């Protein structure tokens, strides 16, 4: 039995109408990498917040070695060596790297900038990464920012480092760097609690994995003696069949062709999409995929190139032009680009059409209700009423609302940017089924995704981008993960 550094005992946390954590107990050992796995809403984030003192549990206790706490404050969590790296970084953008690393440090009125930078440089040297301690944090990439967060945790002598989806903003090589660093921290006796949706990663680095579901503790397994299927079954509580639905329809004629499209760092990108086809767009973060979608959709001005729809050249300079020619976008950032979070489900669904159906500026209320109800039932949007605000829906249902909004505008070519990001496993399946239904109806889909499995499982063809350049195109028969990764990282 190894030394326990942190345990939670019978933690329960309720919010009105929902039990976020239900009698959860688990133990973390010194110097292990312990993965937390669960669908959205399984209670992982709430548990982290309880441990880090951001919220107080209703009952239960937290033990640091022998010390027992019934509630935590952020201060006492820090004193006990807890550091959390959230998905949204908590760095002061305007300050330098070094200033951020030592931000929480108690000190006198005056700061010796040189000294702080020197000490920061030592930490980065220890981590074996190159970083300018004097650089302003605002100018750093997400990967570098994360390194600053880790350095911050090291500087505060963290013994328990909690990382919430740390690989989400990183490219493949950056993830490797991060793995090396946390491996080193582990060897120094730091306990790492690692939360990720990417199951493959857990097998790479974790020693043990705890699965949570619906606010409950399910099981803790030794990582090397379990497998992917077992974990997914534990997560969803049922067997998942047919992850990627297959279909019989064959893609038809070309409906959209882009020629030499350039802008926002993308250069001379040409490809075509067929009727009833899912064209996958692969590439690393920063490869220009989302930019490509924005340009096609007219959300940003392009530098050059042409878009042909159904054999006709079309000028698309704004989203309403794109919608007019039947192009719809389901954006990556649901919260900021996809929907109006504080408006009703109905309002969001009809957002793109209420102007077109209005007569003399009068909104056709009946038609709006009918449209919203139609999509609610067709997509099985789980909401108590059409007047419910979108913010109160789950990620999967929000995505359905956005899809409904896009389809209500009578679109035929749908650009999905990361269609299942942040969506739990069960809802993912529903989104995939909807996408397949759409192509079976003769719609065309351009699917941007960072999940290799999703790309390979769903697409009829793949195009690969790297740093704004078109790297190649693969038909389904030639799908091969290694080949795609090589193209995406710039090798031919």
């Amino acid at each position: 039995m190894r030394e326990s550094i942190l345990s939670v005992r019978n933690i329960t946390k309720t919010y009105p109408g929902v039990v976020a954590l239900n009698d959860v107990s688990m133990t973390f050992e010194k110097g292990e990498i312990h993965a937390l796995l669960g669908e959205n809403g399984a209670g992982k984030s709430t548990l982290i917040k309880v441990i880090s003192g951001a919220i107080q549990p209703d009952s239960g206790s937290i033990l640091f070695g022998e010390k027992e706490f019934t509630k935590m404050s952020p201060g006492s969590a820090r004193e006990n060596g807890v550091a959390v790296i959230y998905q949204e970084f908590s760095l002061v953008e305007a300050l330098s790297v070094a200033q951020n690393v030592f931000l929480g440090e108690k000190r006198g009125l005056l700061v010796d900038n040189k000294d702080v930078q020197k000490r920061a440089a030592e930490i980065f040297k220890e981590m074996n990464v190159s970083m300018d301690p004097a650089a302003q944090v605002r100018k750093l990439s997400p990967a570098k920012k994360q390194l600053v967060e880790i350095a911050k945790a090291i500087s505060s002598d963290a013994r328990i480092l909690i990382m919430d989806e740390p690989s989400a903003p990183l490219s493949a090589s950056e993830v490797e760097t991060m793995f090396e660093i946390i491996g080193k921290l582990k060897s120094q006796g730091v306990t790492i609690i690692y939360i990720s949706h990417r199951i493959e990663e857990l097998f790479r680095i974790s020693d043990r994995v705890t699965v949570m579901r619906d606010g409950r503790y399910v099981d803790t397994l030794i990582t090397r003696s379990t497998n992917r299927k077992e974990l997914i079954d534990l997560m969803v509580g049922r067997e998942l069949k047919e992850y990627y639905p297959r279909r019989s329809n064959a893609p038809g004629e070309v409906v959209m062709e882009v020629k030499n499209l350039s802008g926002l760092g993308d250069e001379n990108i040409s490809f075509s999409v067929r009727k009833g086809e899912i064209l996958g767009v692969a590439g690393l973060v920063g490869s220009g995929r989302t930019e490509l979608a924005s340009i096609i959709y007219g959300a940003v001005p392009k530098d050059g190139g042409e878009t042909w729809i159904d054999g006709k050249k079309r000028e698309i300079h704004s989203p309403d032009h794109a919608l007019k020619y039947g192009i719809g976008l389901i954006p990556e950032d649901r919260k900021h680009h996809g929907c109006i979070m504080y408006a009703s489900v109905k309002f969001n669904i009809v957002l793109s059409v209420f102007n077109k159906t209005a007569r003399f500026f009068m909104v056709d209320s009946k038609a709006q209700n009918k449209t919203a109800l139609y999509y609610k039932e067709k997509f099985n949007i789980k909401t108590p009423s059409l007047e419910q605000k979108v913010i109160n829906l789950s990620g999967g249902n929000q995505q359905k609302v956005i899809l409904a909004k896009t389809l209500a505008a009578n679109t035929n070519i749908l650009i999905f940017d990361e269609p299942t990001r942040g969506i739990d496993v069960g809802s993912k399946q529903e989104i995939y089924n909807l996408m397949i239904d759409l192509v079976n109806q003769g719609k065309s889909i351009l699917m941007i995704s960072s999940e290799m499995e999703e790309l390979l499982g769903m697409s009829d063809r793949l195009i690969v981008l790297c740093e704004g350049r078109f790297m190649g195109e693969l038909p389904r028969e030639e799908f091969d993960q290694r080949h795609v990764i090589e193209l995406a990282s710039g090798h031919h």
Partner: protein
Amino acid sequence: MKINLRGLQKYAVMFILIILMVLFSFSSPYFLTIRNLTNIITQNTYFIILAIGLSFVMIGGGIDLSVGWQMSLVGVVTAMCMTLYHLPVWLAILIGILLGTLLGFFNGMIVANIKVFPLIVTIATSTVFQGISYIISQARTYRSYPDQFLFIAKGNVLGIPFDVLLTILIVLFASFIYYKTSYGWNVLALGGNEEAARLAGIKTKAMKISVYTVCGFFTAVAALVMIAKANTTNSSFGPGTEFTALTAAIVGGISFMGGEGNMLGLVTGVFILAVLGNGMQLAGWGTYAQYIVKGIILLGAVSFDELQKNARRTRRKPVMPITPLKGDMEK
């Protein structure tokens, strides 16, 4: 947090108004007289009209702090048209309203084309309007308007004072716009999430210009009512009203962050401030104490607005409400 604060606020403002009226009726026997209550209503018609204008900008996600000096400029120009140049009343009114609309359009063009906080833009333009107002008026006072013009303040239609009737019509009209017209829905979409609205094909830039223009229009109407009531004006008439209108709008549940609001709440908001002012006056508190109270109320209302946005923002898991939230789009 699972309390529907916004729903709570709808009743809370009404409740606060009633509590205030009960309290002040104890402090002064004069407060609850028909005469005093009528005064409260007629003295505040132009604040309501102004707040309605401002609500278009605020629900559209912006802010306009220049409405006070817009009123000043529209007021002196209209007054000069009538008293100095002896233009027909209808023409003077038309000029005033066109001018106000133009000032709003001017604000809208700047806000939509330069990506600067509208707060700063309208503070800047209000200084410009102030300068123009004083240059045009030459710091003089213009009084004694034609009877036709004074009908706005003194006239009666079906036994109701004309300006009260006008205000009621404007409130109904604005409610109609928000709930029933595509324009109103576009305003809600713009304020709710500008980028999502743009990506949904809504012409957000044109909408932005238009909400400031509409605001300018109503501000001009408010200015005409204001100078008709006083039967006099100079460049110092108007500034300060933006503060009352803004406070009333926020107290009445128009979100400082856009996308939400209802006209009844807004009217109640105006009357809460009016009753406070009137009641404190009757209780002998004086004008200066009122400033303190109004400032505290604005702070309180803005904090409440922020609090309830935060309560929703930090809600982790999708929560099924105990009672379904009523949407803001439908009555």
